[in-house]
Every structure is written in C-alpha cells, then in structure tokens.
C-alpha cells in the first residue's frame, strides 16, 4: 500500500480552488473529483470540482474562464462591424443567432429599421441556426447518457442545414452576415426550395431521435426526475430558453418581446412547455422546438416579401449617444446586448448577456446530492456552449 503525502503547496491549492490532497486510503468522504477541463462530457473546457461521498455529490463548483476571450474589453476598441465578427464566436453552434441582438441594439440606437425582406431573412437564418444548434443537442444528449449512435445521425443531418447557411452567407459556423440596417447579400436562386427540402429531412431526423431516445426506457430511467428545477428557482437564476420552458414557465421572447424587430409577429408558432422541470422535460421541449423551428422556416420561405435588403445608412457608421438593450430568443436561451454609445465609431460599453452563463450558474445549487452519472445527464440537459459562458 503506497502512502501518499501532500504534493501540492497551498498557493497551488488556492489557485486551483480545489482540494489537492489525494488520499488513496479509500476514504470516500471528501473525495474531490475534477471533471474537466478536458472531458468528453463538458462541451468544451468547463471544469467542475465535485466533492463526492462515494458516488454522491456533496458539493459541486464549476470553474470556468478557460476560454475567456475578453469580448467586453475588446468591444471597447472595435467598430460595430468588427464586433459583429467577434460576436459570431460566442455561441459557435448558433452561428447567425449571435449577431442578431447586437445589430438590433445598434439599429435601435441609430433609429434605423431594416426593410421587411431583411427582417424576414434575418429571422429565417435565425431559425435555421436554431435547427442546427438544437438538432445537434438531440443527438449529443444521447451521447451523454451512453447511446453513441444518435450523435452521428445528428452530425450527419446537421450538415444539410449548414450547407444551406453556407450557400447564403458563405460561412457554415461564422456567417458574419448581419449589417446595421439589413443584411449583406440576398438569397441565392433556388435556395428557398432546397431549404424546404432540408427541413423535411430535419423533421424526419426529429422523428428518428424521438424513436431512438425518447422511446427508450433506459433513457427515461436516466433522465426522468433527474435535475428537477422548480419554476421559481429557474426564474431567480435567470434560466432561459428551453430550460425555463421545461419548468413550466411560458416565456418566449419571440412571442412576448421584441415586437417589430424580427418577423415573428407575422408568423404562427407554438411555444412548448413542460411541467416537470427535469432533464427529460428539457430534452422533450427542445425536440418540439426543433420541429416548430422547421415549420417556422417553411412559413418564412413561403411568405418572403420582396424588396431591398439594406436600409440607407451612412458609409461610416457613427452611432448616436444612448443606451439600448435588446435580447432575443437564441437557441441556447436569452441572449442580449446592452450597448452604451457616446456617439463614436466604437461603442462605449457592450455588456453581453449570454444564456449559458445563467444556465450554468444554477449547477452549484442543482448538483447537490446527485450521483456522478447524473452530473453528466444534468449538464447535458442544460445544454451550454463554453464560448457562451466564457465570452
């Protein structure tokens, strides 16, 4: 039996904010397990320092910042067009959706409104970003609980959506397509028909995921009743998106806010909620949301107005002084930008309200008393992207 001595100094302990004393004499109380920063289950470099008692978590503390890029500081020295490029990279799976609230906030400050066709194309790309992002979640949630196959189907079917986005914007992951006053380019010829065909494929994919995962008793056993978030706690922590709706709160910024900014006022869609608030509910709500998003894309393709795609804005964009906050219902949740301008080429301050920051802030509260496998299930069901947490 090898005896173990302290091999890390106190300053290292303070730096890592973790208990560094590793006791090999099978003392299960107070065993500290580091999940991450390199770990297949955390979507990126998130580290969770969990104190375990056997297989049960006593306390869990997420440590992040491994991907902190300092966007808010950078935004103070970048022009609005440059910030649009930066901002694409916050939630990299939800590509276009990151740019939209920022551009809308800047447009509000400038008093510019995008023409209808631009609004509709923005909404269209927004919803396609949602389909791509949450479609991947459906497959990858299976991966978290051990089913390896659905993830492959998700990646395969997501490629169709990314091809369409690439056909319009030129970029699969970082389109950088939104401009103050409109969008950069118009839709290519034949794109609308192809997109509708792709949406049919995505609906088939959703049905496949429903059969594979929702129908599996093992999946239900792993997800039902795990990580229940009561509605009031969800509101306090600012959970948004499907996480909030899965706890029973009927709040969707597409329907309840931002009237006139995007094309949702003229569209017909249902907001899905689920009363349970557990991981199963979050998966279920997201599945329905993807289906609903495909229907929205169909409606947008059918009703696309004609006209210009860019309003008249000066060539050198100086945004008048003021403050504006616009948040939209992004795939991950509510993403908002609080833009403060003092009449310059660059904003004075941009506060980025990212959905995953709030979604993950609930984990210390939520992970008390769960088993180690449930940590993975809960993190998977909350669905965060590291770039969104760390900005």
């Amino acid at each position, binding site marked *: *039996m*090898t005896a*173990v001595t302290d091999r890390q100094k106190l300053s290292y302990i303070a730096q890592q904010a973790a208990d560094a004393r*590793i006791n*090999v004499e*099978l003392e299960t109380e107070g*065993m*500290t*397990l580091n*999940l991450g920063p390199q*770990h*297949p*289950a955390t979507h990126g470099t998130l580290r969770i320092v969990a104190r375990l008692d056997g*297989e049960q978590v006593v306390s869990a503390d997420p440590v992040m910042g491994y991907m902190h890029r300092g966007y808010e500081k950078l935004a103070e020295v970048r022009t609005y067009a440059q910030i649009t490029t930066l901002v694409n990279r916050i939630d990299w799976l939800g590509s276009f959706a990151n740019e939209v609230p920022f551009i809308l906030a800047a447009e509000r400050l400038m008093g510019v409104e995008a023409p209808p066709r631009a609004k509709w194309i923005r909404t269209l790309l927004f919803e396609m970003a949602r389909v791509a992002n949450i479609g991947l979640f459906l497959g990858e949630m*299976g*991966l*978290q*609980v*051990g*089913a*390896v*196959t659905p993830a*492959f*189907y998700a990646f*395969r079917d997501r490629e169709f959506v990314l091809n369409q986005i690439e056909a319009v914007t030129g970029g699969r992951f970082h389109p950088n397509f939104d401009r103050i006053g409109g969008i950069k380019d118009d839709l290519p010829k034949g794109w609308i028909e192809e997109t509708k065909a792709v949406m049919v494929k995505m609906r088939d994919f959703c049905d496949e995921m429903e059969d594979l*995962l929702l129908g*599996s008793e*093992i*999946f239900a*056993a*792993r997800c039902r009743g795990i990580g229940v978030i009561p509605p009031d706690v969800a509101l306090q922590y600012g959970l948004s998106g499907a996480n909030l709706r899965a706890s029973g709160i009927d709040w969707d910024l597409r329907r309840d806010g931002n009237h006139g900014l995007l094309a949702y006022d003229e569209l017909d869609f249902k907001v899905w909620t689920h009363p349970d608030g557990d991981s199963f509910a979050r998966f279920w709500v997201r599945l329905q949301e993807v289906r609903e998003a495909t229907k929205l894309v169909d409606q947008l393709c059918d009703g696309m107005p004609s006209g210009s795609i860019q309003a008249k804005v000066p060539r050198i964009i100086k945004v008048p002084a003021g403050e504006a906050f616009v948040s939209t219902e992004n795939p991950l949740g509510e993403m908002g930008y609080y833009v403060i301008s003092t009449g310059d080429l660059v904003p004075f301050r941009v506060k980025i309200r990212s959905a995953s920051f709030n979604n993950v802030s609930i984990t210390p509260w939520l992970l008390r008393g769960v*088993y*180690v*496998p*449930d*940590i*993975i299930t809960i993190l998977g069901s909350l669905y965060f992207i590291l770039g969104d947490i760390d900005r």
Partner: protein
Amino acid sequence: MLALHLAYWQETILRLVIGLAALLGLTGAVVYLYLFKFVSFMQSRLGPMEAGPYGSLQLLAEVGKWLQKEDVFTERADRFVFAASPFVVILSTFLLFVVVPAGPTDEVAHMSNSLLYALAVSAISVIGILMAGWASANKYALLGGLRAAGQLVAYELPMVLAVIGVVISAGSLNLQHIVAAQSTGHVFGWSGIGNPYILTQFTGFLIFLIAMQAELTQTPFDMPVAESELVAGYMVEYTGIRFLVYFIAEFATAIGFSAIAATLFLGGWGLPASWGIGHEAMHVVGPIVISAKTVLLTGVVFWVRFSFPRFREDQLQRLAWKFLIPLALGNIVVTACLKVAF
C-alpha cells in the same frame, strides 16, 4: 482419427496452441466485423477502409500501433499490481475458453464438470478489474473499478441461476453431455431440430444474455467504462501493450461467453442427430458450427451495445437483484417441476 501418437505434454501444447489460435482468430474476426464495420454502418459511416481491402488489416495495424507505444506507469501507481492486472483479466478468459467443446472430443481440457469450472473461472476477471482500478492511483479509475466490482458480482448470480435450468434439463454439468442432450433431444416428441435449450429454456436464455452483457461491461451496462464520464474508467491509465491486452480481453471474453452460451442454448458444436451427420465428420464440421453460433451471439451483444444508452449504477443493481434473480429462481422451479412431471 489421425494416427499420431503424441506424448501427453506434446498433446497439451498442441491443444493449447490450437485453442489460443482459435480464440484470437475469432476475436480478430469479431473485432473487424462488428467493431469496425457493423457499428460504422449503423452510424452511417464506412469505418476503416485504408489498411488492406475494405480495412480488413486494420486490426493488425492497431495491434502494431499499441505494441510500439511507451509503457507508461503513473507516478503513484502500485507498479506490480498495475502491471499484472491486464494479464489477470485475460487469463480468466483463456481459462474460460479451455473447456469450450468444438467437436466430440475437441476441447482443450477434458473435465467432467466443465460447466461448473467455466462459471467459476469467469469470475477471476473481477479481481483483475479491481486491481486496475486500485493500482492506477486515479480517482476515475477507482470509481470505475468499484462500479465494476459491484456490477460483476451482482450479475454472476443471474447467470449461474439461468444456467441451472439447462443443467436440470440436460441432467449433467458436463458441456459435452449438454451438447449431446440438445443434439439428440426432442421437443414435444419432434426431434427434427433436436432440443436446443433456447426453445425450452427461453427465459433462461434471455437472462443469460442480459447477465452476459453485464459481465462483459458492455452498454447498457458499461458504467465501469462509461466513456462520457469516466473516459475509459478502470482502463484510463493504461497504454501500450497493457491496453492492448485489455482490448483483446474485452472481445475475447465476449467470444468466450458467447461460446458458452452457444454451447448451452444453441446446441454447441452439435447439429441435430436426426440430420444424420456422422460422428467422424463432426470433428471437422463441429468447429465451424460452434464458430458460427458464437459469432452470431457476439453480434447480438454488440448490436445491443451500440443501440442503447447506459444504466446508472443503482438502476443496474436494482435490475439484477430485484428482477433477474427472482426470475431466474422462478425459472429453476418451473424447470424442475416440468422435468419431474414429464
């Protein structure tokens, strides 16, 4: 048959070599067929295509890759235990395989109670896994090893109890006698296909399959190796030849258990006696038959593996103790009653 008269030690070596070759050959075939190709097609991709035609030599490439890796020991690992544990696991597999009959007298070791021996020896792998989990000095490995210990011990019981039904039906613990009983038996008076116990012991067969899946730590029972949590669990600190031995052990054990299951439930090397294939021919046909049945059952194991999510540890234990064991006990009672009655 062959008019060779070998000394005992020569015959032993010959049998061991042939047995080893058979095991490794079957393992290689199964790895290629199921792990490289079957799962790839299920996941809408092609799998290895480069090494050899359609990637058939990929296994050789993998073996070569693992062999040339550096043999790493973590700093605080218990060196002897860490080094020995893969070999303990694969030892249990070889020991299991020596009693699998491939023909009328063709097993590596003749034993009168071969089934009892097989079930006993298959439990040695638990020790190897615990050794790995402990000696790695890694919390993930420890968690994996402890989970494995609980799971493997728990699922030994349904396996043994399911097999008892077969023993009662055949009236013997000897695997050769069980094969003979299936081959010459009859189902409700009709001996067209003999009496493979998959038909009359269907419950036992299902319980054995589920328990086998758990003994192999395959999904849905792969908590010890839960890849998305523990990143290879008790094997996480292993690399090089030791990891290769674990890799081989995983598939070789699948072959071993499937061979036992094929012998117990599908009729082993035997074809139904009513088909009238001569005793001498079975020395040649037998190995082919048992190989086919083994590979078939292994296919079922891997098919399930790549389809389902995994159980959590406590749900897994609940399934074993509260569901499978009572079911297996009930199966024994029913079989005994029916055996006495008919």
